[in-house]
C-alpha cells in the first residue's frame, strides 16, 4: 500500500460549483420575487450576491482541497489539513471498524463518493475520518483493503447475498408515520411558498372559493383526504429513494448494505461488532403482518454530526416470516432468536400499570376540554364526551396490547426482550454483549414488587430495558449473564420483594 500523501479528488470543485449554483438559485428566486416591487438598485444585489456566493464557496473548497492530504500506510489512515491551523487525524488500521460510502446526486454526477472511516467509537470526536470526495472505484478498493484483515478470522457463515429488494414490500411504505407527516408537511410547504410570494391570503381565499359549496366538516374531510393522498405518494417516493437497489450481503466477515436511488448509501458492519438484532413492528406494519430489522452493533452511529438520529435498519418492512428468516441468516441461528413464541410473560401487576398510563393519557385532554367547557361553552363538554367515548376504549385496547407484548427469555446465545404497543420491538441481544446490569424501581413499582431490568451494552444507545418484571426477573438476569448479578442476590426465604429497607 502506498504511503505517499495524496490529494482528495479534484472533481470536488465541480461538485461544489454545482451545489453552490443550486443554493444560489434556491435562495435567489424568492429574494428576486420579494424585491420585484422595490426598483432596480436593490435588484442588482441578487446576481452580485449569487456570483459572490458561488465564487466564495468554490474558493473555500479549493483552499480545503489544496491543503488537505491523506495517506493510507501499512499501519495507519491519516488525514492532514495545513491551512492556518495544522491538524492531523490518524487512526490505526487495526482499529478501523467501518468504511461507509455515500454519494449524493451531485457526487454521482461526477463519479465521486464520500468515504467515512470509523473506529466503532464514533460517539467520541476524532474517531471518524472523512474523505470527501474520492473516486468511486478508488473508494471501493480502499474499503476492501481496510477491511480485508477480517478474512483471517474463521468465517462462521458463508459469504453471499442475504436479501435484496422485493417490490412487493412497497405496499408497507404508506403504513408508516411518514404518511401523515408528509401530508401535513405538504400543506405547510404550500403556505410557505405562498408566503414568499406574498399571496398567502389569496391561496386561502382561492381554496375557500373552490370548495365554497361544502360545509366546514366536508371541507375538513376533503383536505384530510388530499393530505393523505399526498402523504401516501410522498412515502412511496421516500421508500423508492431510500431502498432502491437494496442489497444486503455478507463479504469477508462483514455485513454490507447498499441502497438508494438519488443518494446511494453503503453501510459496512463487521460481524464481530454485531451484538444482535431488533425486530421492529410499528403499529401500521404490524397490522399488515410486516416487520423490519434494525442492527444492534457496537460503534453504530446513534446520532450524526448534527444530532439527528441515524437509522440503523438492515432491512425495510417486509412480511414477518421473511424478516424472521433474514434474522436467522444474519445471526446464523435457526430458529431465529427474535421469534416471540415461548417468551416469559410479565406479572399481572404490569398490566395495571399499562392500563393506568394509557387511560390517564387519554383522559388528560378530556379533562382539559371538560374544564374549559364548564368555564366557557357547552359545546366543549359535548366534544369532551365524544373524545372520551372514542379515546378510552382505544386506550384500554392499547394498554392490554402493551401488556400482552411484554416478554423476555433466553434463546441459546441470545437474551430476548419484547415490549411496546405502538412500536413493538423484540430485541435479541447477544448474552456476551451484556456488560452490566441496572435495576431501577420507583416507589409505585416497589409497592407491587416490580422492577425494571436494564441490560447494559456497548451496542447502539447502550441499554435495553426489560420493564416491570418481579423478583424472578433477577434470577433471569443471573441466568442470562452468569457471574454478574448473582453474587448480589439473596435466595433466602422471605417475601419476594426486590428491595430491602
Amino acid at each position, binding site marked *: 500500500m502506498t504511503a505517499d500523501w495524496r490529494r482528495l479528488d479534484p472533481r470536488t470543485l465541480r461538485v461544489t460549483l454545482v451545489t453552490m449554483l443550486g443554493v444560489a438559485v434556491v435562495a435567489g428566486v424568492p429574494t428576486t420575487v420579494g424585491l420585484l416591487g422595490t426598483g432596480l438598485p436593490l435588484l442588482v444585489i441578487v446576481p452580485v450576491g449569487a456570483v459572490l456566493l458561488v465564487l466564495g464557496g468554490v474558493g473555500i473548497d479549493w483552499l480545503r482541497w489544496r491543503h488537505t492530504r491523506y495517506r493510507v500506510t501499512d499501519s495507519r489512515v491519516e488525514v492532514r489539513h495545513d491551512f492556518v491551523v495544522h491538524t492531523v487525524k490518524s487512526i490505526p488500521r487495526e482499529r478501523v471498524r467501518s468504511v461507509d460510502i455515500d454519494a449524493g446526486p451531485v457526487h454521482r454526477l461526477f463519479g465521486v463518493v464520500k468515504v467515512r472511516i470509523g473506529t466503532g467509537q464514533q460517539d467520541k470526536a476524532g474517531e471518524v475520518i472523512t474523505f470527501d470526495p474520492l473516486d468511486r472505484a478508488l473508494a471501493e478498493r480502499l474499503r476492501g483493503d481496510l477491511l480485508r484483515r477480517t478474512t483471517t478470522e474463521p468465517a462462521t457463515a458463508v459469504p453471499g447475498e442475504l436479501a435484496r429488494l422485493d417490490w412487493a414490500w412497497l405496499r408497507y411504505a404508506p403504513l408508516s408515520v411518514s404518511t401523515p407527516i408528509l401530508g401535513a408537511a405538504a400543506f405547510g410547504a404550500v403556505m410557505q411558498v405562498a408566503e414568499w410570494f406574498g399571496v398567502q391570503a389569496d391561496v386561502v381565499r382561492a381554496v375557500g372559493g373552490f370548495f365554497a359549496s361544502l360545509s366546514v366538516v366536508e371541507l375538513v374531510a376533503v383536505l384530510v383526504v388530499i393530505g393523505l393522498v399526498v402523504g401516501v405518494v410522498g412515502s412511496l417516493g421516500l421508500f423508492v429513494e431510500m431502498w432502491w437497489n437494496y442489497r444486503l450481503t455478507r463479504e469477508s466477515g462483514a455485513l454490507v448494505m447498499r441502497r438508494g436511488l438519488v443518494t446511494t448509501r453503503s453501510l459496512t458492519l463487521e460481524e464481530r461488532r454485531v451484538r444482535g438484532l431488533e425486530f421492529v413492528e410499528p403499529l401500521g406494519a404490524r397490522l399488515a403482518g410486516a416487520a423490519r430489522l434494525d442492527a444492534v452493533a457496537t460503534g453504530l452511529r446513534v446520532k450524526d454530526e448534527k444530532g439527528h438520529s441515524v437509522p440503523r435498519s438492515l432491512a425495510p418492512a417486509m412480511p414477518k416470516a421473511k424478516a424472521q428468516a433474514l434474522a436467522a441468516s444474519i445471526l446464523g441461528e435457526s430458529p431465529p432468536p427474535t421469534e416471540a413464541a415461548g417468551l416469559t410473560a410479565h406479572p399481572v401487576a404490569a398490566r395495571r400499570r399499562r392500563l393506568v398510563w394509557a387511560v390517564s393519557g387519554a383522559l388528560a385532554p378530556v379533562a382539559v376540554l371538560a374544564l374549559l367547557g364548564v368555564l366557557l361553552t357547552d359545546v366543549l363538554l359535548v366534544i369532551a364526551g365524544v373524545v372520551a367515548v372514542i379515546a378510552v376504549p382505544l386506550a384500554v385496547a392499547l394498554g392490554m396490547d402493551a401488556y400482552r407484548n411484554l416478554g423476555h427469555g433466553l434463546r441459546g446465545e441470545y437474551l430476548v426482550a419484547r415490549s411496546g404497543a405502538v412500536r413493538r420491538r423484540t430485541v435479541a441481544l447477544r448474552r456476551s454483549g451484556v*456488560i*452490566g446490569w441496572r*435495576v431501577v*424501581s420507583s416507589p409505585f413499582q416497589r409497592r407491587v414488587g416490580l422492577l425494571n431490568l436494564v441490560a447494559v451494552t456497548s451496542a447502539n*444507545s447502550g*441499554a435495553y430495558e426489560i420493564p416491570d418484571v418481579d*423478583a424472578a426477573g433477577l434470577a433471569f438476569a*443471573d441466568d442470562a449473564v452468569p457471574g454478574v448479578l448473582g453474587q*448480589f442476590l439473596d435466595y*433466602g426465604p422471605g417475601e419476594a420483594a426486590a428491595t430491602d429497607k
Partner: protein
Amino acid sequence: MQDSHASPRLRPPRNPVERRAVTWWATQAALWWGGIVVVLAVAAAVIGPARFWLLLAAAVTAVVCLVDALVVSRVRFRVHRWEVTDDAVYARTGWFMQEWRVAPMSRIQTVDTKRGPLEQRFGLSTVTVTTASAHGAIKIPGLDHRMADDLVQTLTAITQATPGDAT
C-alpha cells in the same frame, strides 16, 4: 446458578457512604432551593402587582427546600450504598427512583474521582466507574476523599490487569 423458581432479592451493597454526606446533600439542597427563594422574594419586593403570587411561589419553594434538606437527604443516605468485590463494582443510588448498578471488572474502562467545591469542604469525593456503554457509568457519591483515592487506585490496578477491550 440457582433454581430460577426461587424468588431472589437484590441484597444491599455492604458499605454505606459517609455520614457527613447527609450534611453535604442538605447544604446542596439549601443552596439550590434557597437561591430560588431569595430570587422570588426579591422579585416580590420589586414587582408590586405580582407580589401575592411571587410570595406564594417563594413559600412553596421554601417548603420544598426544607423537605429536600431535612428528609430527602436522610433517605438518600439510607439508599446510597456501595461495594467492590473481586470481580464487580456494585452500587445503589437514588431516593425516589432507586437504582442498583453492577459492572463486572472485566468491562470497566475508566475510573475517576470528582470533587466539587462543596464536596471539598466536607472532605468528600464522587467516584465514577465507566464502561463501554453510554449508560453504564456507576457513580458513587459521598465517599471520604482518601478512601475514594484508594478505591480508584485499587480499581485501576485490577482493571489494568484484566484483559479484553471491555466491549
